[in-house]
């Protein structure tokens, strides 16, 4: 009986809510695309549920053309206001970013090190990763060789899953050397992915779906790969084992190899970024369907709501899976790239 009541309540809510919401949006066209990209993008404040007006204010740190640093809360420039000569651009190249006006009155973009929504989410992720990993480390320090249970045990299982399954099996004797980097990458990406799926405050930022984040991670893998690359690895790039014609008058193979050096991190960047952004986009698009169909009457809107919500939940669940898979794939590929650069000549002499 209770369950039946609950289902009815949800259905009624589903039929009424979109109507009232679309009525409240002043009859203006819903800017679907803008809304989607707004949710995928960064911002100078953190949205709170059920309000388009209020945001959690975050510090804005900018350096103007004279090299002076300005620091103020984002609430000061929230609704088109200007503070200290800075405001958020409404349109143009820097739309949605903090801009200032120089002496000539032209708009310019200051050096912007603001703690934006994504940056704060980054800090939260770092904190969560530290909390998780250090809890395991603390356990090992305190309890010696006893096997951990519950949460700590789960995290340890994940660590040894990645360490034994990916790092050790690929890098062999070099495993311990690169394990700290690779494990950090895995847990950082995994936590960022999962936090991105939580809809309200501590999560919701589309971090790994932002190209800057994945670019930094891929660049780091690129650096680790090439800095620790062996002589054999460099020889294979500039003087590979191919017929002479392929490398002497025209360095075809070396060019391809050098090109390959950069396509690897590029692939890493795009893969993680596109997968996570795609997941977020689908969920938002499914939610937006409700508002698109809202003006067509209660029946259509209600039906769409039910279907959309079910699909959103389904997609979010898949995204949980994707979060893990993408973190795993990124780590695995990084491990393979590093392992390839660690190769020593084996069939020579």
């Amino acid at each position, binding site marked *: 009986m209770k369950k039946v009541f609950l289902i009815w309540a949800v259905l009624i809510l589903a039929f009424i809510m979109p109507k009232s919401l679309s009525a409240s949006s002043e009859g203006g066209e819903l800017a679907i695309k803008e809304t989607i990209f707004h949710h995928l993008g960064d911002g100078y404040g953190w949205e709170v549920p059920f309000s388009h007006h209020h945001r959690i204010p975050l510090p804005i740190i900018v350096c103007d053309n004279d090299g002076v640093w300005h620091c103020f809360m984002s609430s000061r420039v929230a609704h088109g206001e200007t503070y200290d000569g800075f405001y958020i651009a409404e349109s143009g190249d820097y739309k949605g970013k903090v801009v200032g006006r120089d002496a000539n009155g032209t708009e310019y973009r200051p050096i912007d090190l603001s703690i934006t929504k994504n940056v704060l989410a*980054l800090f939260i992720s770092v904190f969560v990763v530290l909390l998780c990993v250090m809890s395991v480390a603390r356990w090992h320090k305190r309890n010696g060789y006893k096997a951990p249970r519950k949460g700590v045990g789960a995290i340890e299982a994940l660590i040894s899953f990645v360490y034994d399954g990916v790092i050790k099996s690929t890098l062999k004797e070099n495993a311990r050397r690169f394990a*700290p980097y690779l494990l950090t990458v895995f847990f950082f990406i995994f936590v960022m992915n999962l936090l991105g799926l939580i809809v309200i405050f501590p999560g919701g930022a589309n971090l790994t779906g932002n190209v*800057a984040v994945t670019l930094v991670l891929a660049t780091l893998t690129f650096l680790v790969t090439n800095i620790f690359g062996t002589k054999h690895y460099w020889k294979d790039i500039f003087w590979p084992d191919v017929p002479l014609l392929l490398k002497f008058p025209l360095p075809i193979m070396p060019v391809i190899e050098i090109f390959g050096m950069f396509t690897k991190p590029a692939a890493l960047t795009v893969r993680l970024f596109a997968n996570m952004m795609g997941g977020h986009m689908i969920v938002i698009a499914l939610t937006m369907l409700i508002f698109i169909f809202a003006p067509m009457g209660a029946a259509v809107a209600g039906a769409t709501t039910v279907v959309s919500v079910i699909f959103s939940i389904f997609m979010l669940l898949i995204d949980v899976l994707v979060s893990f898979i993408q973190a795993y794939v990124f780590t695995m590929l990084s491990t393979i790239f590093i392992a390839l650069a660690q190769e020593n000549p084996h069939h020579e002499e």
Partner: protein
Amino acid sequence: MELFTPDFGLIFWMFVSFAVLFILLWKFGWPVILNGIDGRADLIDKGVEYAQNAKEQLDHAREEADKYIADARRQQAELLREADKMKTQIIEEAREAAQKEAQKVMDAAKVSIEQSRKEAEQNFRNEVSVFALDIASKVVRNQLVDEKAQTKLVNTLLDEIEKQN
């Protein structure tokens, strides 16, 4: 589009936070955990090996114990047999000794009997000779009542003595 153009601020902060996270975990996190996991794996491996060895030794020990028991049984049997032999030997010896002793005692008895017999014989002879002499003297006294006969005897005796010398 904003999504595809990396923002400098985010790159900067991403780099900083990753560096901080990496350094902290590199120093305080991963080595402890990985050493712990590896150490535990080693400990478990060693434990298994130890248990296997112990089991092997136990099996071996059982075998050895069986061997010892068999050995002990054999020794026991041997001892028993020996003891039996010794017993019969002792009895034999005792019997022999007893026989010897008895022989000796009998011999001694025989000797003493012989002696007594001889002594008795001697006494008997002595007494008989005394009786004989008495009887003879009595007979002689009867015969030599007359002088003539006496003289005749004396003469005869004297003749005998003469002849002897």
